[in-house]
């Protein structure tokens, strides 16, 4: 099974290579599988990031109760100890190889008038299930531009919405009933991606030898890229530093 999928992958790589450089007679020999590299590092900031504000959920008493004692903060810039940045997408934006299409279902929850996770990464056509765990209604309104923009109501107790995104795109998602609810569906063509946790750390593994562009994207501070060459089973350290401004 494994050998079979490697063979298929090799065929895809060879034909893909041929299609791209029709003038070259004889494609490069397929690279030996197995020798995979890793890119890992941290995302931090310099400067002063904006203070995240407590969200007033008074319009939805259910959600106030759910967060009693610990008001939810806005999530557009979430930091950790040591100036680290959370919710940053790090992914291979160019030179990607060895990616596998994802088939497992990704889950988005609407709970306590928040999107969980705040940043959801998925690949084109990967199944996405959207749940409403709250005892009241939400409307899910992804503001897609390349993909179709839709807006669906999901009352309390309604079954999950089964959907997917076909085109790579970074899609802001909102609920019009609860205007503070804000999240992202990041559709990327690579399976080499990571979203930073509170420690700002990320690891992209399983990278065949080659030249890559690694991009880090943060919803307020934008994107940064670095070129990295992987020449075998090595781990290349890559760090990103965003310049934070309070407004």
């Amino acid at each position, binding site marked *: 099974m494994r050998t079979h999928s490697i063979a298929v992958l090799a065929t895809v790589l060879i034909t893909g290579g041929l299609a791209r450089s029709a*003038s070259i007679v004889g494609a490069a020999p397929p690279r030996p599988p197995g020798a995979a590299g890793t890119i890992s590092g941290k995302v931090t900031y310099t400067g002063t990031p904006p203070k995240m504000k407590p969200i007033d959920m008074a319009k939805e008493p259910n959600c106030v109760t759910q967060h009693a004692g610990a008001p939810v903060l806005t999530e557009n810039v979430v930091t950790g100890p040591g100036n680290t940045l959370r919710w940053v997408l790090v992914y291979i934006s160019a030179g990607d190889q060895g990616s596998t299409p994802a088939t497992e279902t990704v889950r988005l929850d609407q709970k306590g008038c928040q999107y969980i996770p705040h940043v959801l990464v998925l690949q084109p056509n990967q199944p996405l299930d959207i749940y409403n765990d709250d005892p009241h209604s939400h409307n899910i309104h992804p503001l897609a531009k390349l993909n*179709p923009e839709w807006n669906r109501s999901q009352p309390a107790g309604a079954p999950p919405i089964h959907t997917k995104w076909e085109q790579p795109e970074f899609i802001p998602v909102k609920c019009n009933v609860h205007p503070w609810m804000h999240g992202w569906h990041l559709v990327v063509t690579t399976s080499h991606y990571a979203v930073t946790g509170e420690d700002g750390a990320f690891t992209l593994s399983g990278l065949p030898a080659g030249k890559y562009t690694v991009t880090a994207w943060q919803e307020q501070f934008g994107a940064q890229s670095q070129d990295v060459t992987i020449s075998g089973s090595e781990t290349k350290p890559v760090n990103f530093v965003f310049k934070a401004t309070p407004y």
Partner: protein
Amino acid sequence: MKSNTRLVALLSGLGVLLCAAGANSARAQTSHIGNLTGHAAPGSKLYQRYCVGCHGADGDGAGENAPWIDPKPRDFTLAVFKCRSTPTGTLPTDEDLFNAMTRGFVTTNMPQWLPLTRQNRADLVAYIKSFSPKWKTLKPGTPITIPAEPRLTIESILHGRQLYQKMECWKCHGPKGHADGPSAATLTDNKDLPIRPYDFESGSRFMCGVTNQDLYKIFMTGLDGTPMPSFADNLEPAGAWDLVHFLRTLQPFDTPEAALWKAWLASHAGELKPIGPGGGGGGGR
């Protein structure tokens, strides 16, 4: 040999580019409305005469009048349309666009275009579709099925009222349909511009047509680009018709729905639980 191949590749690449440019400038697109066929070329001329002032030369809704207009003119480059017969997230049919243009958008600056001939309007539909590549890559959605309207009964209105509570229509449209629900003041459209929910008490026409069928369509397809979502996932056709019957009672008109409702209320008003937070919306039987 090698340079020859490259030259061929370069020339064929140029060919592709030229073809693409040609197709683009000709805006080779048509529309089909009944037995009418609209063509983009004459549509383009009509657009320059009647539409460009608001919708802009690029169809992005940024015409020279746009700064003075609220709500803003439609941005055709997004290919997102409010009034459709098709499910949320799908392109409208040519007929949907034709009807929207003909009807105009009440409470906005978009007038009725009845003075233009049917052929003119069909040509404009064809041209409008040239502003977004989605019209080339996607097909219009399949229009939703609307079963025949069932007989109006008080049970239907009462069930519709329960759905108004359960689906939380009141969160934006208000407990009495006065557009004063808790979320009404913070609504924004897909360009983050403020937008108002429909006020049933105003008595103004619905944005996407005046019939009960049009009303059914509005909440079963959603008004894409606005906060109004589709309820099709969670409303059965029978329930949707009940909701139509109840919504009619919120308008200040002498409709059969309003007459039946008033007659029932005269002797049963005390049985109703108010709509709103923690409200049952139920009542009656």
